[in-house]
Protein backbone atom coordinates (compact mmCIF):
# COMPACT_ATOMS: atom_id res chain seq x y z
CA UNK A 1 0.00 0.00 0.00
CA UNK A 2 1.84 3.09 -1.11
CA UNK A 3 -0.39 5.48 0.84
CA UNK A 4 -0.65 3.62 4.12
CA UNK A 5 0.94 6.00 6.67
CA UNK A 6 1.95 3.21 9.04
CA UNK A 7 3.76 1.36 6.28
CA UNK A 8 5.46 4.59 5.29
CA UNK A 9 6.67 5.18 8.85
CA UNK A 10 7.78 1.58 9.10
CA UNK A 11 9.74 1.81 5.86
CA UNK A 12 11.38 5.08 6.88
CA UNK A 13 12.42 3.69 10.27
CA UNK A 14 13.84 0.58 8.63
CA UNK A 15 15.74 2.58 6.06
CA UNK A 16 17.16 4.87 8.76
CA UNK A 17 18.40 1.83 10.69
CA UNK A 18 19.77 0.44 7.46
CA UNK A 19 21.72 3.61 6.73
CA UNK A 20 22.97 3.89 10.32
CA UNK A 21 24.13 0.29 10.19
CA UNK A 22 25.93 0.68 6.89
CA UNK A 23 27.52 3.93 7.99
CA UNK A 24 28.73 2.35 11.23
CA UNK A 25 30.25 -0.59 9.38
CA UNK A 26 31.89 1.73 6.88
CA UNK A 27 33.32 3.88 9.68
CA UNK A 28 34.69 0.88 11.59
CA UNK A 29 36.16 -0.74 8.49
CA UNK A 30 37.85 2.41 7.23
CA UNK A 31 39.08 3.56 10.66
CA UNK A 32 40.61 0.17 11.36
CA UNK A 33 42.71 0.55 8.21
CA UNK A 34 44.12 3.83 9.61
CA UNK A 35 45.98 1.75 12.19
CA UNK A 36 47.04 -1.29 10.19
CA UNK A 37 50.00 -1.31 7.79
CA UNK A 38 50.80 -0.75 5.00
CA UNK A 39 50.49 3.01 5.41
CA UNK A 40 50.73 5.43 2.56
CA UNK A 41 52.63 8.48 3.87
CA UNK A 42 52.87 10.02 0.41
CA UNK A 43 49.14 9.81 -0.11
CA UNK A 44 48.48 11.22 3.36
CA UNK A 45 50.77 14.16 2.66
CA UNK A 46 49.16 14.72 -0.74
CA UNK A 47 45.71 14.78 0.86
CA UNK A 48 46.90 17.09 3.63
CA UNK A 49 47.99 19.57 1.01
CA UNK A 50 44.63 19.26 -0.73
CA UNK A 51 42.52 19.44 2.42
CA UNK A 52 44.54 21.82 4.55
CA UNK A 53 46.78 23.96 2.41
CA UNK A 54 44.40 24.54 -0.47
CA UNK A 55 41.63 25.50 1.96
CA UNK A 56 43.76 28.26 3.45
CA UNK A 57 42.53 31.11 1.20
CA UNK A 58 38.83 30.52 1.74
CA UNK A 59 39.23 29.74 5.44
CA UNK A 60 41.56 32.71 5.95
CA UNK A 61 39.06 35.02 4.27
CA UNK A 62 36.27 33.70 6.47
CA UNK A 63 38.41 34.09 9.58
CA UNK A 64 39.63 37.62 8.98
CA UNK A 65 36.18 39.02 8.28
CA UNK A 66 34.66 37.11 11.19
CA UNK A 67 37.24 38.64 13.52
CA UNK A 68 36.60 42.11 12.12
CA UNK A 69 32.82 41.87 12.35
CA UNK A 70 33.03 40.43 15.83
CA UNK A 71 34.83 43.55 17.04
CA UNK A 72 32.39 45.92 15.34
CA UNK A 73 29.36 44.12 16.69
CA UNK A 74 30.55 43.82 20.26
CA UNK A 75 31.84 47.40 20.33
CA UNK A 76 28.34 48.84 19.99
CA UNK A 77 27.30 47.08 23.20
CA UNK A 78 30.01 48.52 25.47
CA UNK A 79 31.05 51.87 26.83
CA UNK A 80 34.44 53.01 25.49
CA UNK A 81 36.27 52.13 28.69
CA UNK A 82 34.86 48.59 29.11
CA UNK A 83 35.24 47.88 25.41
CA UNK A 84 38.99 48.14 25.37
CA UNK A 85 39.39 45.39 27.96
CA UNK A 86 36.38 43.22 27.06
CA UNK A 87 36.55 43.04 23.30
CA UNK A 88 39.84 41.10 23.10
CA UNK A 89 38.45 38.53 25.53
CA UNK A 90 35.26 38.11 23.53
CA UNK A 91 37.12 37.86 20.23
CA UNK A 92 39.60 35.31 21.50
CA UNK A 93 37.06 33.22 23.35
CA UNK A 94 34.54 33.00 20.56
CA UNK A 95 37.16 32.33 17.92
CA UNK A 96 39.00 29.59 19.78
CA UNK A 97 35.95 27.89 21.23
CA UNK A 98 33.35 28.17 18.51
CA UNK A 99 33.74 30.31 15.45
CA UNK A 100 37.21 29.16 14.42
CA UNK A 101 36.51 25.43 14.31
CA UNK A 102 32.87 25.60 13.21
CA UNK A 103 33.21 28.18 10.44
CA UNK A 104 36.43 26.69 9.11
CA UNK A 105 34.90 23.22 9.15
CA UNK A 106 31.76 24.36 7.36
CA UNK A 107 33.84 25.98 4.64
CA UNK A 108 35.97 22.86 4.32
CA UNK A 109 32.85 20.67 4.25
CA UNK A 110 31.80 22.54 1.13
CA UNK A 111 35.16 22.30 -0.55
CA UNK A 112 36.66 19.02 0.55
CA UNK A 113 33.50 17.03 1.29
CA UNK A 114 32.23 17.71 -2.20
CA UNK A 115 35.55 17.09 -3.93
CA UNK A 116 36.12 13.84 -2.05
CA UNK A 117 32.65 12.52 -2.85
CA UNK A 118 33.00 13.47 -6.50
CA UNK A 119 36.44 11.89 -6.84
CA UNK A 120 35.63 8.63 -5.08
CA UNK A 121 32.17 8.52 -6.64
CA UNK A 122 33.67 8.80 -10.11
CA UNK A 123 36.15 6.07 -9.27
CA UNK A 124 33.23 3.91 -8.16
CA UNK A 125 31.10 4.35 -11.25
CA UNK A 126 34.03 3.96 -13.64
CA UNK A 127 35.00 0.72 -11.83
CA UNK A 128 38.36 2.09 -10.69
CA UNK A 129 37.57 0.90 -7.16
CA UNK A 130 36.92 -2.61 -8.47
CA UNK A 131 40.18 -2.36 -10.39
CA UNK A 132 42.04 -1.57 -7.16
CA UNK A 133 40.69 -4.75 -5.64
CA UNK A 134 41.81 -6.85 -8.60
CA UNK A 135 45.29 -5.32 -8.26
CA UNK A 136 45.59 -6.64 -4.69
CA UNK A 137 45.05 -3.21 -3.14
CA UNK A 138 42.40 -2.68 -0.50
CA UNK A 139 40.38 0.40 -1.49
CA UNK A 140 39.64 1.26 2.16
CA UNK A 141 43.33 1.28 2.87
CA UNK A 142 44.48 3.01 -0.28
CA UNK A 143 41.69 5.51 -0.90
CA UNK A 144 39.90 6.16 2.35
CA UNK A 145 42.31 5.71 5.26
CA UNK A 146 44.86 8.29 3.96
CA UNK A 147 42.08 10.83 3.48
CA UNK A 148 40.68 10.26 6.96
CA UNK A 149 44.10 10.62 8.54
CA UNK A 150 44.79 13.75 6.52
CA UNK A 151 41.45 15.29 7.51
CA UNK A 152 42.06 14.49 11.16
CA UNK A 153 45.51 16.09 11.14
CA UNK A 154 45.06 19.03 8.79
CA UNK A 155 41.86 20.55 10.18
CA UNK A 156 43.40 21.43 13.59
CA UNK A 157 46.36 23.02 11.80
CA UNK A 158 44.03 24.93 9.52
CA UNK A 159 41.88 26.04 12.43
CA UNK A 160 44.91 27.20 14.41
CA UNK A 161 45.94 29.38 11.48
CA UNK A 162 42.35 30.60 11.06
CA UNK A 163 42.19 31.61 14.71
CA UNK A 164 45.37 33.62 14.43
CA UNK A 165 44.08 35.33 11.29
CA UNK A 166 40.73 36.01 12.97
CA UNK A 167 42.38 37.60 15.99
CA UNK A 168 44.48 39.67 13.58
CA UNK A 169 41.32 40.88 11.85
CA UNK A 170 39.94 41.93 15.21
CA UNK A 171 43.19 43.67 16.01
CA UNK A 172 43.13 45.66 12.79
CA UNK A 173 39.60 46.97 13.35
CA UNK A 174 40.25 47.65 17.05
CA UNK A 175 43.41 49.65 16.54
CA UNK A 176 42.84 51.39 13.21
CA UNK A 177 39.11 51.98 13.32
CA UNK A 178 38.29 52.14 17.01
CA UNK A 179 41.62 53.61 18.07
CA UNK A 180 42.50 51.15 20.85
CA UNK A 181 46.04 51.07 22.15
CA UNK A 182 47.84 48.29 20.20
CA UNK A 183 50.17 47.21 23.00
CA UNK A 184 47.42 46.99 25.55
CA UNK A 185 45.19 45.16 23.08
CA UNK A 186 47.80 42.49 22.40
CA UNK A 187 48.50 42.12 26.09
CA UNK A 188 44.77 41.64 26.69
CA UNK A 189 44.64 38.97 24.02
CA UNK A 190 47.39 36.95 25.63
CA UNK A 191 45.68 37.29 28.99
CA UNK A 192 42.44 36.05 27.47
CA UNK A 193 43.96 32.86 25.99
CA UNK A 194 42.88 29.78 27.93
CA UNK A 195 44.38 26.34 27.39
CA UNK A 196 40.99 24.66 27.68
CA UNK A 197 39.51 26.92 25.00
CA UNK A 198 42.33 26.20 22.61
CA UNK A 199 42.37 22.47 23.27
CA UNK A 200 38.62 22.09 22.95
CA UNK A 201 38.68 24.07 19.71
CA UNK A 202 41.41 21.91 18.21
CA UNK A 203 39.72 18.69 19.33
CA UNK A 204 36.59 19.92 17.59
CA UNK A 205 38.62 20.66 14.48
CA UNK A 206 40.12 17.17 14.40
CA UNK A 207 36.72 15.52 14.83
CA UNK A 208 35.16 17.77 12.19
CA UNK A 209 38.00 17.02 9.78
CA UNK A 210 37.42 13.30 10.24
CA UNK A 211 33.66 13.67 9.79
CA UNK A 212 33.89 15.81 6.65
CA UNK A 213 36.17 13.33 4.93
CA UNK A 214 34.17 10.37 6.22
CA UNK A 215 30.98 11.75 4.69
CA UNK A 216 32.74 12.50 1.41
CA UNK A 217 34.18 8.99 1.25
CA UNK A 218 31.00 7.24 2.39
CA UNK A 219 28.73 8.90 -0.13
CA UNK A 220 31.29 8.63 -2.91
CA UNK A 221 32.03 4.99 -2.18
CA UNK A 222 28.34 4.08 -2.25
CA UNK A 223 27.37 6.16 -5.26
CA UNK A 224 25.53 4.39 -8.04
CA UNK A 225 24.62 5.04 -11.60
CA UNK A 226 26.81 7.46 -13.50
CA UNK A 227 27.08 11.22 -13.38
CA UNK A 228 23.72 11.65 -11.68
CA UNK A 229 24.68 9.31 -8.86
CA UNK A 230 27.96 11.14 -8.35
CA UNK A 231 26.09 14.46 -8.27
CA UNK A 232 23.73 13.17 -5.60
CA UNK A 233 26.67 11.79 -3.61
CA UNK A 234 28.36 15.20 -3.69
CA UNK A 235 25.28 17.00 -2.39
CA UNK A 236 24.68 14.40 0.31
CA UNK A 237 28.30 14.57 1.42
CA UNK A 238 28.15 18.33 1.94
CA UNK A 239 24.76 18.37 3.65
CA UNK A 240 25.45 15.43 5.96
CA UNK A 241 28.96 16.74 6.70
CA UNK A 242 27.61 20.15 7.72
CA UNK A 243 24.85 18.60 9.82
CA UNK A 244 27.28 16.31 11.63
CA UNK A 245 29.58 19.26 12.34
CA UNK A 246 26.77 21.11 14.10
CA UNK A 247 25.67 18.05 16.09
CA UNK A 248 29.18 17.10 17.16
CA UNK A 249 29.94 20.71 17.99
CA UNK A 250 27.22 20.51 20.62
CA UNK A 251 28.37 17.12 21.90
CA UNK A 252 32.01 18.16 22.26
CA UNK A 253 31.09 21.49 23.85
CA UNK A 254 28.94 19.61 26.33
CA UNK A 255 31.80 17.22 27.09
CA UNK A 256 34.31 20.03 27.71
CA UNK A 257 32.32 22.78 29.33
CA UNK A 258 29.21 21.44 31.05
CA UNK A 259 29.63 21.36 34.77
Amino acid at each position, binding site marked *: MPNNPLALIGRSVLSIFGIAGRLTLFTLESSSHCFRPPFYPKLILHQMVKIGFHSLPVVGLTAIFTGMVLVLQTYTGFSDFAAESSIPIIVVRSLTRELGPVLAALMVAGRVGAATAAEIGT*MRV*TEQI*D*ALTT*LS*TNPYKYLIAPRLIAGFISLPLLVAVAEIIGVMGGYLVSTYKLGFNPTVYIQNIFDALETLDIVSGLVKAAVFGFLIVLMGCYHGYNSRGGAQGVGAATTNAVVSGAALILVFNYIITEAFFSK
Partner: protein
Amino acid sequence: MSNDRPKIEVRGLRKSFGSKIVLDGADLHVAEGESLVVIGGSGTGKSVLIKTIIGLLEADGGSVKIDGEEVTTMRSRDRDRVLRKIGMLFQGSALFDSLPVWENVAFGLIQGRATDRREAKDIALAKLASVGLGADVAGLYPAELSGGMQKRVALARAIAANPEIIFFDEPTTGLDPIMADIINELVVQCRTELGATTISITHDMVSTRKIADRIAMIHGGRIIWEGPVAAIDESGNAYVEQFINGRAEGPIKMAVRES
Protein backbone atom coordinates in the same frame (compact mmCIF):
# COMPACT_ATOMS: atom_id res chain seq x y z
CA MET B 1 48.87 -30.19 -8.37
CA SER B 2 46.37 -32.58 -9.84
CA ASN B 3 45.42 -31.77 -13.37
CA ASP B 4 41.93 -33.19 -13.36
CA ARG B 5 40.77 -30.63 -10.81
CA PRO B 6 39.41 -27.59 -12.66
CA LYS B 7 41.21 -24.31 -12.08
CA ILE B 8 37.87 -22.56 -11.81
CA GLU B 9 34.63 -24.29 -11.00
CA VAL B 10 31.33 -22.43 -10.84
CA ARG B 11 28.14 -24.16 -9.73
CA GLY B 12 24.60 -22.82 -9.56
CA LEU B 13 25.76 -19.22 -9.37
CA ARG B 14 22.91 -16.78 -8.76
CA LYS B 15 22.88 -13.00 -8.74
CA SER B 16 20.01 -10.52 -8.88
CA PHE B 17 19.76 -6.77 -8.64
CA GLY B 18 16.51 -6.01 -6.86
CA SER B 19 13.87 -7.97 -8.72
CA LYS B 20 16.03 -8.34 -11.83
CA ILE B 21 17.53 -11.80 -12.02
CA VAL B 22 20.81 -11.73 -13.94
CA LEU B 23 22.44 -15.06 -13.09
CA ASP B 24 20.05 -17.91 -12.45
CA GLY B 25 22.17 -20.93 -11.71
CA ALA B 26 25.19 -20.60 -13.99
CA ASP B 27 27.61 -23.55 -14.15
CA LEU B 28 31.09 -23.32 -15.59
CA HIS B 29 34.41 -25.04 -15.31
CA VAL B 30 37.78 -24.14 -16.73
CA ALA B 31 40.79 -26.43 -16.69
CA GLU B 32 44.27 -25.19 -15.87
CA GLY B 33 45.89 -23.49 -18.86
CA GLU B 34 42.66 -23.49 -20.81
CA SER B 35 41.10 -20.56 -22.64
CA LEU B 36 37.35 -20.28 -22.24
CA VAL B 37 35.38 -17.71 -24.17
CA VAL B 38 31.96 -16.70 -22.92
CA ILE B 39 29.64 -15.42 -25.61
CA GLY B 40 26.15 -14.03 -25.31
CA GLY B 41 23.95 -11.10 -26.16
CA SER B 42 24.30 -7.66 -24.74
CA GLY B 43 22.97 -7.42 -21.19
CA THR B 44 22.81 -11.16 -20.62
CA GLY B 45 25.09 -10.91 -17.61
CA LYS B 46 28.55 -11.75 -18.95
CA SER B 47 30.27 -8.95 -17.05
CA VAL B 48 28.22 -9.74 -13.95
CA LEU B 49 29.28 -13.38 -14.26
CA ILE B 50 33.00 -12.69 -14.09
CA LYS B 51 32.63 -9.98 -11.44
CA THR B 52 30.73 -12.43 -9.29
CA ILE B 53 33.39 -15.11 -9.85
CA ILE B 54 36.11 -12.71 -8.72
CA GLY B 55 34.01 -11.50 -5.80
CA LEU B 56 33.63 -7.88 -6.89
CA LEU B 57 29.90 -8.59 -6.71
CA GLU B 58 28.58 -10.71 -3.89
CA ALA B 59 26.84 -13.88 -5.11
CA ASP B 60 23.30 -14.51 -3.92
CA GLY B 61 23.87 -18.24 -4.03
CA GLY B 62 25.90 -21.02 -5.58
CA SER B 63 29.56 -21.84 -5.38
CA VAL B 64 32.78 -20.63 -6.97
CA LYS B 65 35.93 -22.67 -6.48
CA ILE B 66 39.34 -21.47 -7.56
CA ASP B 67 42.07 -24.11 -7.26
CA GLY B 68 39.55 -26.09 -5.24
CA GLU B 69 39.00 -23.33 -2.68
CA GLU B 70 35.51 -22.00 -2.15
CA VAL B 71 35.81 -18.23 -2.61
CA THR B 72 32.25 -16.97 -2.11
CA THR B 73 32.40 -17.46 1.66
CA MET B 74 36.08 -16.71 2.11
CA ARG B 75 37.48 -14.40 4.79
CA SER B 76 39.06 -11.28 3.41
CA ARG B 77 42.65 -12.35 4.10
CA ASP B 78 42.22 -15.56 2.13
CA ARG B 79 40.43 -13.67 -0.60
CA ASP B 80 43.43 -11.32 -0.92
CA ARG B 81 45.63 -14.35 -1.43
CA VAL B 82 43.34 -15.71 -4.16
CA LEU B 83 43.06 -12.29 -5.83
CA ARG B 84 46.82 -12.27 -6.23
CA LYS B 85 46.46 -15.07 -8.76
CA ILE B 86 44.02 -13.04 -10.82
CA GLY B 87 44.26 -10.29 -13.39
CA MET B 88 41.29 -8.56 -14.92
CA LEU B 89 40.67 -6.38 -17.94
CA PHE B 90 37.54 -4.31 -17.36
CA GLN B 91 35.10 -3.67 -20.17
CA GLY B 92 35.39 0.09 -19.60
CA SER B 93 39.17 -0.10 -19.01
CA ALA B 94 38.82 1.38 -15.47
CA LEU B 95 42.22 3.06 -15.61
CA PHE B 96 43.20 5.24 -12.65
CA ASP B 97 42.86 8.71 -14.11
CA SER B 98 45.04 10.30 -11.43
CA LEU B 99 48.08 8.24 -12.44
CA PRO B 100 50.16 8.26 -15.64
CA VAL B 101 49.96 5.29 -17.97
CA TRP B 102 53.08 3.51 -16.75
CA GLU B 103 52.02 3.77 -13.10
CA ASN B 104 48.67 2.32 -14.05
CA VAL B 105 50.40 -0.67 -15.59
CA ALA B 106 52.84 -1.00 -12.70
CA PHE B 107 50.20 -0.46 -10.02
CA GLY B 108 49.68 -4.09 -9.07
CA LEU B 109 53.44 -4.59 -8.91
CA ILE B 110 54.18 -1.52 -6.78
CA GLN B 111 51.17 -1.50 -4.45
CA GLY B 112 50.06 -5.10 -4.47
CA ARG B 113 53.42 -6.85 -4.59
CA ALA B 114 55.82 -4.23 -3.23
CA THR B 115 58.09 -4.35 -6.29
CA ASP B 116 60.80 -1.70 -6.51
CA ARG B 117 59.52 1.29 -8.52
CA ARG B 118 62.35 1.33 -11.05
CA GLU B 119 62.02 -2.38 -11.72
CA ALA B 120 58.23 -2.05 -11.94
CA LYS B 121 58.60 0.73 -14.49
CA ASP B 122 60.81 -1.44 -16.69
CA ILE B 123 58.24 -4.23 -16.57
CA ALA B 124 55.47 -1.74 -17.32
CA LEU B 125 57.33 -0.41 -20.37
CA ALA B 126 57.88 -3.94 -21.63
CA LYS B 127 54.20 -4.80 -21.18
CA LEU B 128 53.19 -1.58 -22.93
CA ALA B 129 55.46 -2.48 -25.82
CA SER B 130 53.79 -5.88 -26.07
CA VAL B 131 50.41 -4.20 -26.59
CA GLY B 132 51.90 -1.92 -29.23
CA LEU B 133 52.38 1.22 -27.15
CA GLY B 134 55.71 3.04 -27.10
CA ALA B 135 57.56 4.70 -24.26
CA ASP B 136 56.19 8.07 -25.37
CA VAL B 137 52.74 7.02 -24.14
CA ALA B 138 54.02 5.91 -20.74
CA GLY B 139 54.06 9.40 -19.27
CA LEU B 140 50.63 10.46 -20.53
CA TYR B 141 47.47 10.36 -18.44
CA PRO B 142 44.59 8.03 -19.38
CA ALA B 143 42.36 10.98 -20.34
CA GLU B 144 44.88 11.88 -23.05
CA LEU B 145 44.51 8.52 -24.79
CA SER B 146 42.00 7.27 -27.35
CA GLY B 147 39.53 4.60 -26.27
CA GLY B 148 41.46 1.87 -28.06
CA MET B 149 44.74 2.95 -26.47
CA GLN B 150 43.09 2.95 -23.04
CA LYS B 151 41.94 -0.58 -23.69
CA ARG B 152 45.47 -1.67 -24.51
CA VAL B 153 46.85 0.01 -21.40
CA ALA B 154 44.21 -1.78 -19.36
CA LEU B 155 45.27 -5.03 -20.99
CA ALA B 156 48.90 -4.37 -20.13
CA ARG B 157 47.86 -3.66 -16.56
CA ALA B 158 45.87 -6.89 -16.32
CA ILE B 159 48.83 -9.03 -17.39
CA ALA B 160 51.62 -7.01 -15.75
CA ALA B 161 52.01 -9.25 -12.71
CA ASN B 162 51.87 -12.45 -14.80
CA PRO B 163 48.74 -13.74 -13.05
CA GLU B 164 47.72 -17.40 -13.21
CA ILE B 165 44.16 -16.54 -14.13
CA ILE B 166 43.17 -13.65 -16.39
CA PHE B 167 39.69 -12.36 -17.13
CA PHE B 168 39.28 -10.35 -20.31
CA ASP B 169 36.00 -8.45 -20.58
CA GLU B 170 35.69 -7.62 -24.28
CA PRO B 171 39.40 -7.15 -25.02
CA THR B 172 38.91 -6.25 -28.69
CA THR B 173 35.77 -4.10 -28.60
CA GLY B 174 36.53 -0.63 -29.94
CA LEU B 175 39.74 -1.62 -31.71
CA ASP B 176 40.40 -1.64 -35.42
CA PRO B 177 40.61 -5.12 -37.03
CA ILE B 178 44.40 -5.14 -37.16
CA MET B 179 44.86 -4.06 -33.58
CA ALA B 180 42.11 -6.51 -32.57
CA ASP B 181 44.15 -9.28 -34.13
CA ILE B 182 47.28 -8.17 -32.27
CA ILE B 183 45.31 -8.29 -29.04
CA ASN B 184 43.96 -11.72 -29.92
CA GLU B 185 47.54 -12.88 -30.42
CA LEU B 186 48.42 -11.45 -27.05
CA VAL B 187 45.58 -13.24 -25.30
CA VAL B 188 46.72 -16.47 -26.92
CA GLN B 189 50.30 -15.73 -25.81
CA CYS B 190 49.17 -15.31 -22.21
CA ARG B 191 48.09 -18.91 -22.35
CA THR B 192 50.89 -20.41 -24.42
CA GLU B 193 53.83 -18.51 -22.92
CA LEU B 194 52.72 -17.73 -19.39
CA GLY B 195 50.54 -20.80 -19.01
CA ALA B 196 47.69 -18.67 -17.75
CA THR B 197 44.11 -19.82 -17.52
CA THR B 198 41.91 -17.29 -19.26
CA ILE B 199 38.24 -16.47 -19.38
CA SER B 200 37.35 -13.98 -22.08
CA ILE B 201 34.11 -12.30 -22.93
CA THR B 202 33.45 -11.18 -26.44
CA HIS B 203 30.77 -10.58 -29.04
CA ASP B 204 33.30 -10.95 -31.78
CA MET B 205 33.19 -14.38 -33.41
CA VAL B 206 36.47 -13.88 -35.30
CA SER B 207 38.18 -13.20 -32.03
CA THR B 208 36.36 -16.08 -30.34
CA ARG B 209 37.58 -18.60 -32.90
CA LYS B 210 41.10 -17.32 -32.54
CA ILE B 211 41.46 -17.36 -28.76
CA ALA B 212 39.07 -20.04 -27.52
CA ASP B 213 39.80 -23.63 -26.56
CA ARG B 214 36.25 -23.91 -25.43
CA ILE B 215 33.20 -21.71 -25.79
CA ALA B 216 30.29 -21.20 -23.41
CA MET B 217 27.15 -19.36 -24.34
CA ILE B 218 25.18 -17.53 -21.68
CA HIS B 219 21.48 -16.82 -22.05
CA GLY B 220 18.73 -16.24 -19.53
CA GLY B 221 21.15 -16.35 -16.61
CA ARG B 222 22.48 -19.82 -17.43
CA ILE B 223 25.14 -21.39 -19.58
CA ILE B 224 22.98 -22.92 -22.30
CA TRP B 225 25.73 -24.44 -24.41
CA GLU B 226 29.32 -25.33 -23.84
CA GLY B 227 31.79 -27.08 -26.08
CA PRO B 228 35.14 -27.04 -27.85
CA VAL B 229 35.69 -24.33 -30.42
CA ALA B 230 35.59 -26.85 -33.27
CA ALA B 231 32.05 -27.85 -32.33
CA ILE B 232 30.58 -24.35 -32.44
CA ASP B 233 29.38 -24.65 -36.03
CA GLU B 234 27.63 -27.96 -35.37
CA SER B 235 26.25 -27.07 -31.98
CA GLY B 236 22.72 -28.11 -32.84
CA ASN B 237 21.59 -25.33 -30.51
CA ALA B 238 19.25 -22.79 -32.06
CA TYR B 239 20.42 -20.01 -29.73
CA VAL B 240 24.08 -20.56 -30.54
CA GLU B 241 23.37 -20.76 -34.25
CA GLN B 242 21.42 -17.53 -34.20
CA PHE B 243 24.17 -15.81 -32.24
CA ILE B 244 27.20 -16.93 -34.25
CA ASN B 245 25.45 -16.14 -37.50
CA GLY B 246 24.22 -12.81 -36.23
CA ARG B 247 20.60 -13.25 -37.30
CA ALA B 248 17.82 -11.04 -35.98
CA GLU B 249 15.32 -13.90 -36.37
CA GLY B 250 15.48 -16.80 -33.92
CA PRO B 251 14.81 -17.84 -30.36
CA ILE B 252 16.82 -14.94 -28.88
CA LYS B 253 14.58 -11.92 -28.64
CA MET B 254 16.44 -8.68 -28.09
CA ALA B 255 14.75 -6.20 -25.77
CA VAL B 256 13.91 -3.82 -28.65
CA ARG B 257 12.01 -6.58 -30.45
CA GLU B 258 9.86 -7.51 -27.45
CA SER B 259 7.39 -4.59 -26.97
